[in-house]
């Protein structure tokens, strides 16, 4: 894939549910381009369609209209098997509900994407161990999800999302089910990933997560209503915010 090509893009994307009077535009004519290494946060009130948009971007849902590309390939026309294969190496997904497999240990959970992609058990295990170390959970590798806290589970899920070195990591309300302390852990992790050059698209209603992004997009009723760039600025502003001045 060309270096200058955006990691993913959406053009004229629509998603409608229902019909007639009950027609709902979950996503309404969205245009988006995410460059490699960029971190984009999408915020908005509940039901504004941001999660739907994320699933569309990841090929987990089909658009009603418009084009979607991931890693330079058109998603909207691809058959299900092609999408699955594309997801293997181009996409890592982090869910609000974690969706870890209950009867597998943390390590086995992180191994799963590699195994599904056809890697040997040994390679998958090695990669899983590396990733668990990266997220700081090496000592919990043998624990079942039920023995982990919410924050730890989400970190395992993030490790899993990174298993196949994806081009993009999509996160749907990653801290939605977490308390403040766990949110900080996950926040730190996303910050690190961003610094390492991982392309991120995060849907959230938590402004703390949103503040880690390069770009913040606000959605309402299925459409983008605002876009802010968060690069630049200085801590002088911070001091002013806290009322410490002199």
């Amino acid at each position, binding site marked *: 894939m060309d270096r200058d090509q955006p990691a993913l893009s959406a053009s004229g994307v629509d998603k409608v549910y229902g019909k007639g009077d009950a027609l709902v535009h979950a996503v309404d004519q969205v245009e988006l381009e995410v460059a490699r290494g960029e971190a984009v946060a999408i915020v908005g009130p509940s039901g504004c369609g941001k999660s739907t948009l994320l699933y569309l971007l990841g090929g*987990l849902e089909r658009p009603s209209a418009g084009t979607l590309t991931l890693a330079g390939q058109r998603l909207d026309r691809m058959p*299900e098997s092609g999408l*699955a294969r594309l997801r293997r190496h181009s996409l890592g997904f982090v869910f609000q509900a974690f969706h870890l497999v*209950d*009867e597998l240990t943390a390590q086995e959970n992180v191994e799963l*994407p590699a*195994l*599904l992609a056809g890697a040997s058990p040994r390679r998958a295990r090695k990669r899983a161990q590396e990733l668990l170390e990266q997220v700081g959970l090496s000592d919990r590798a043998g624990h079942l999800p039920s023995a982990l806290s919410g924050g730890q589970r989400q970190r395992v899920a993030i490790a899993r999302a990174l298993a196949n070195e994806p081009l993009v990591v999509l996160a749907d309300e990653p801290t939605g089910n977490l308390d403040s302390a766990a949110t900080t852990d996950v926040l730190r992790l996303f910050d690190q990933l961003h610094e390492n050059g991982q392309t991120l698209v995060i849907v959230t209603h938590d402004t703390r997560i949103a503040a880690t992004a390069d770009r913040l997009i606000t959605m309402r009723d299925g459409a983008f209503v605002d876009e802010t760039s968060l690069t630049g600025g200085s801590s002088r502003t911070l001091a002013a915010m806290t009322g410490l001045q002199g």
Partner: protein
Amino acid sequence: MGRLLLIYRLVLGDIKRRRVQSALLVLMIVTTTTTLTLGLMLHHVSPDQFARTRLATRGPDVVAEVGPAPGSSRPAAKQLASLLHAPGVAATAGPFPIAFVQLTAAHRISVPVQAEGRDVAPTAVDQPLVTSGHWVRTGQAVIEQGLADSLGLRVGDTIRLRGRAFKVGGIAVTIEQGFYPGTIPGLVWLTHTNAGQLATPAVPLGYILDIKLTNPGAALTFADMPALNALGSATPNEPSMIEPWQGIRTDDYKLISLNQKVLLVGSLLLSLLAIASIAVLVGGRMAEQTRRVGLLKAVGATPSLIAAVLLAENLLLALAAAILGLIGGDLLAPLLSSPGQGLLGSAVAPQLTGSTAVIVVAVAAAVATLATLAPTIRGARTSTVRALNNPAQAPRRRPGLIAVSAALPVPLLLGLRLVARRPRRAVLSAASLMIAVTMVVTAMTVQHDLAATGQRRVPYVGLFISTAVSSAAHANHLLIMLSVILVVLAASSAISTAWAAVIDAQTSTALARALGATPRQISAGLTTAQLLPGLAAACVGIPAGLLLYQLAGGHLNEASPPLLWLLAVIPGTLIAVAAVTAIPARIGARRSVAEVLRSE
């Protein structure tokens, strides 16, 4: 009143929301109730028809017959004369002439028959009872009931005997010989003149004599008397026969009992399938229902209200299924009855009696209650929070299987892990499939038994052996129908089981898809998860089927199908299971991943 309305709304709402699951549940229960209905209905077939017919037709105690002897010096009729005044004889009728001819029916079917010449006036011994039409007239034939049913002949049809046209004037029953196709050739009555006209120099007339004894019980000894045997031994070229009425009854009952055996075995198996399906049903719904109980508790419903809601929903579905099952059984049963049995009272198809209906409805209600009890009790015992969060048995962890599966290709990995995670469901699937395999194997065995027996039947008249028309043919037909029905029911049960398993694995497969598994891999994984129980089912079902046949009264040494056939059941089962799982798997794969994962 308000409570009833609330219950009604809750029940209807839930059914509407889970349309597919409700339909599956109804399907499974319908399978159960249909099989049960059939089993009960078939059980009623077989009153003592022979005795009734014997009484009504003034049946003979002994029948003596001398076959045609071309070029014989002694006229056949004379040979029978010595029996007219033998000791123990109370009355006789005949000797009546018999012509051996081919009967050709309108649709070009041609079978050998013996055409008996009879008086128009009734005789004291063996007066066939006309069940439709009238007795012999010139130019008209009366057909034996079994023969008429087999050929589909009715009063008014035209038949040809040795090329001569006759109108079918009537249909009658007799016990002079066993009914067709239990005994061949079939029997047809004509006037004396007409019968005489059918003889040729090559095949002259034979003669038959009906004898009534003073002591009917002595018929067997009578038939063994040396003097009579002399009838046949003197000239080997003159075929002859002396048949006591018990022998004729045996002939008739061989056919009836064969049919009955088939039906009995069938009804046993059907009932077993019913029970197995119930177990699968109740077991499969547990998790979901426990969660509902938790939910209702959490919103403040009293235990009695919860029980009422669950019971109402289960009852509603079960009763709907019961009615469908009764209708289905009623529609299918005639296919399994035995029309064409040439005895009184046998032309009637099995009836759907009130008691059958009551039993079926009761069973359906029992299933509903059982299915309600278990989760209600469980929900009452567990705390609400646990019931909500942990509705199913938490999936078991089997480190060995997990490690092993990691090294396998993706479909096997998925399949093995799916089975490992819900072993109980796998066991239930295996049980339900095992019943199906058992049925197929038993059906195969009965079929094989018939084929073997059919071939050993001794032909009556050397000149007219026809293997195309054997006594086994009808039972065979019966068996084929039964097998088809069993297979259809087994298939529907297998489909419901597979579908339920696919739904159960929804989240797992959606996650796998999100992580990069293709629909084909998912489909193969789901199939694999069903194949393992299928394999177990096949291995256990084969001996079980043979055992069941034995238990139902068959003779295994003669009847056992060739080993190769039996072994072929294994791959056959696997292919069937794979096919049946592929459909819901494919449909499940179309659902968008997002939809499944978001609803969790």
